[in-house]
């Protein structure tokens, strides 16, 4: 009877505990943009997974917005 009572108390209090998350969120880690993707829409002129090539691609691509490069 005593054992049964202990078991009942243990089971009834089991839901009262709170598991620690360690201060971390379950947010997923994101891949870097320079790692690229393998779909068919990747722009030509740079090699995915090369950070330096991606930086250069971004720089060159941004310059297409500069009409002073095209019209003088």
């Amino acid at each position: 009877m005593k054992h049964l009572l202990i078991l009942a108390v243990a089971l009834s209090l089991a839901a009262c505990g709170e598991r620690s998350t360690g201060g971390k969120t379950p947010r997923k880690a994101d891949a870097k943009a320079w790692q690229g993707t393998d779909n068919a829409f990747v722009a030509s002129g740079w090699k995915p997974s090369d950070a330096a090539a991606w930086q250069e691609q971004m720089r060159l691509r941004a310059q297409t917005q500069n009409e002073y490069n095209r019209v003088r």
Partner: protein
Amino acid sequence: MARMKFICDAERCIECNGCVTACKQEHEVPWGVNRRRVVTLNDGVPGEKSISVACMHCSDAPCMAVCPVDCFYRTDEGVVLHDKDICIGCGYCSYACPFGAPQFPTNGNFGLRGKMDKCTFCAGGPEANGSEAEFEKYGRNRLAEGKLLACAEMCSTKALLGGDGDVVADIFRTRVLNRGKGSEVWGWGTAYGKPSTTSGSGIAPAKEPTKS
């Protein structure tokens, strides 16, 4: 590492809404959600000014500060993104944002508010780059494809500039110096902070040309 920024040139924006359309089309944004919109001041009055507004990917993002479930994160390029699997749609970020960027799709009866949606700087989300899951939740990941933002690249007058902050600031500075006016960039100081000195790396103020 590049620090991605937007600049919208109010002297050039003609309120065509091409940026809004490009964004909606590129990411298949649902009805009722506008990641980008064009705001016009003094509409109909001569001298009206328009500016294209979206998430400014703030350096010290208030949405990130107030989120109770910590679903926001910032990439190495300074792009503020969020994880929709964690977002609870509480709307705190919407109240905190000075630009009204966070959007909430109303799906279902009683104005049920869905998970927050906002401009991703065409950088997708925490799912695998270019995956179907990423596209479904966040839209296309153009940065991982080696492209810049659809809105800026589609802008017909090049009023909206996007990309590495140093590069777009140089483009804008050249433009301002050539035309001699319009150095004010709306929202810049709010989102990215003000330069400590006027002669720092900020955009140089231009003088009005003298008429003779």
